[in-house]
């Protein structure tokens, strides 16, 4: 077990180095740099050439990208993710600011998904093949194919434009319209109203996917011999379904949970972009546009670590819940 963990962690480090080299190389080779993104195509029109050269030196932009990468990784080993060039703040502070709003959306969506997916998935497998189940499955399949950005635009049209002035009106953009000194209760309500549309968008695709996933696994499980045994000994249909079949489908479910870790914290670029939600996904999108290398690298590092951890976690949980599987 210990050697397995050690091997996985070492391999993970190698992977991390490769990912960060690739992303750093890509980022530094995008046309322009943070200064041109800030001062326009030709910075000499806004600032003097000496200032430009001085700023380039200060931000390490005069180095070639391999040198810059070495510098960045040296700082990383000292626990320093660097400062954002365009936002003049440490990258860790930026991430700390943005992680809350993203968790608000993705955490709510995550809860809704799993609270609804398990009962609906069990319902679909219990009624397998009946007309009502086929309709539910078809609707879920359609939802699964429905692009998020179309859904987001459509919800905006319906709830923000067509319902303007009615009780159904929901805010289009942002996280809150109230100043920070407004009463707490009102602020919570306001944020909740802003959350509705992004949460719906983030929920429905995964919900449809997870229900289909649970159903597929249940169909596999109910064909096993122990189910026949349970039925033969007189267990009722719901008891068989829940107690005997569902417990055995928990294993792939656990894997799915582990793999959803990065998207939980990484947020969704498209949804946060459409609703101008101040979260991680939007920060990622903006930092690419602003050529803000330290932020791009900080977010990439965080995202890759989470992905690798999620995979490791899924594999470990797999061994934990299924004694037949061994890590070696």
């Amino acid at each position, binding site marked *: 077990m210990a050697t397995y963990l050690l091997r996985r962690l070492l391999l993970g480090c190698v992977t991390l180095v490769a990912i960060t080299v690739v992303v750093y190389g890509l980022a530094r080779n995008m046309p322009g740099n943070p200064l041109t993104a800030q001062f326009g195509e030709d910075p000499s029109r806004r600032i003097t050439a000496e200032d430009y050269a001085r700023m380039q030196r200060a931000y390490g932009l005069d180095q070639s990208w391999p040198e810059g990468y070495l510098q960045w990784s040296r700082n990383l080993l000292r626990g320093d993710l660097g400062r954002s060039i365009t936002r003049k703040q440490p990258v860790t502070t930026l991430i700390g600011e943005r992680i809350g709003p993203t968790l608000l959306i993705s955490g709510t969506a995550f809860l809704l998904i799993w609270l609804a997916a398990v009962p609906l998935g069990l319902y679909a497998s219990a009624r397998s093949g009946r007309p009502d189940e086929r309709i539910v499955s078809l609707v879920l399949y359609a939802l699964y*194919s429905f*692009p998020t*950005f*179309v859904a987001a635009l*459509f919800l905006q*049209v319906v709830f*923000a434009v067509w319902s303007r002035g009615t009780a159904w009106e929901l805010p289009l953009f942002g996280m809150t319209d109230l100043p920070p000194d407004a009463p707490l209760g009102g602020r919570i309500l306001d944020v909740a109203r802003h959350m509705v549309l992004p949460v719906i968008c983030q929920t429905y695709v995964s919900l449809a996917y997870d229900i289909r996933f649970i159903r597929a696994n249940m169909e596999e499980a109910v064909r096993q011999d122990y189910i026949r045994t349970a039925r033969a000994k007189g267990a009722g249909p719901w008891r068989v379904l829940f107690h005997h079949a569902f417990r055995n489908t928990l294993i792939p479910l656990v894997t799915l949970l582990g793999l959803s870790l990065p998207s939980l914290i990484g947020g969704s670029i*498209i949804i946060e972009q459409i609703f101008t939600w101040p979260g991680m996904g939007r920060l*990622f999108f903006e930092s690419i546009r602003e050529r803000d290398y330290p932020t791009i690298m900080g977010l990439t590092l965080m*995202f890759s670590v989470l992905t690798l951890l999620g995979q490791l976690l899924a594999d470990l949980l797999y061994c934990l819940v299924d004694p037949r599987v061994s890590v070696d």
Partner: protein
Amino acid sequence: MERSHGFWAEAWRRYRCRPLAVGGLAFVGFLVVVAAFAPAIAGTKPVLCRYKGRLYAPCLGYFDRRLEPAIFTKDKFRGTYPRNLAAKDPESWALWPLFFQDPYRSVRNDEWPGRPENPAMDQGRPSWNNLFGTDQAGVDVLAKMVHGTTVALLVGFVSMGIAGTIGIVVGAVGGYFGGWIDTLTSRVTEIVMCVPTLVLILSIVAIIEKPTIWHTMAIIGFTGWTGIARLTRGEFLRLKSSEYVTAARAAGAGPLRIMLRHVLPNALAPILVPITFGIASAILTESGLSFLGFGPPPPSASWGSVLNGARSNLGMWWLVVFPGAAIFLTVLAYNLIGEGLQESTDPRLREARK
């Protein structure tokens, strides 16, 4: 000698029993027809016309500018055919497209005798002249979508062609040879998998000076092969120890021959399933990129770029509903095809249906 039904004939027989999967296939067939006849469905150039005693097909200019007959440039038609044809050759006749609308520009006042110009800004709600409405520049949405069908189809096939090739080669090599080669290919796959796809795509798009639709397709292909590689690797791992592979090796077949002739045909069915699902997600990615404004620049017409126009003015619901429905139906069709393929080729599911 009478041969029994092959694997694929058997699979096709089962596939036909699934109405939804057949429906998906029919929809893709419909899109192919629309894409092939796009200039005849919507356009401002005659499908066929007789001018100064000869027959021409100016509508081919929509596929490639060079296919537009030179005589119309020489006679200074400047892209407007109806009045010029009548004025410069009273004897001429023309067969017009189904909808007289252009995907790249607004139709001007009286360009088609008696028809007013296309409404611009947010006034272009659907009407008899513009069935799906017009965008801010007054360009007909239906014409844009009909001509954008080619992009939607090509994106799926080209990018998954690239992704499928890379994925199968990487997975096959890793799975068949094993050892350090497998470690290497698995690592590379994992690296590409861990980088957030959209970030990878956005930064590559930014690096290319003048991105065209072909660049977008190539990027989606080069980033989307990891799932296929993992599956291929698994299949090759499983099949390489089977008896027929040992037999082939004993008969003196080289590794390339074994991989291509013996293992790949048997691994193809499960690999085709994620490729089909990949086509659906490639279409989603392309329209998502165009929607975010990272798509190919105009005048190339993509469904996602029509949606992008709706972001600045949500009151123009027709810019959301029609292209949104087109993207949705196409993605759904490919997903249904993938599902049908899976259920008709997977022997385990086949057992269950008995």
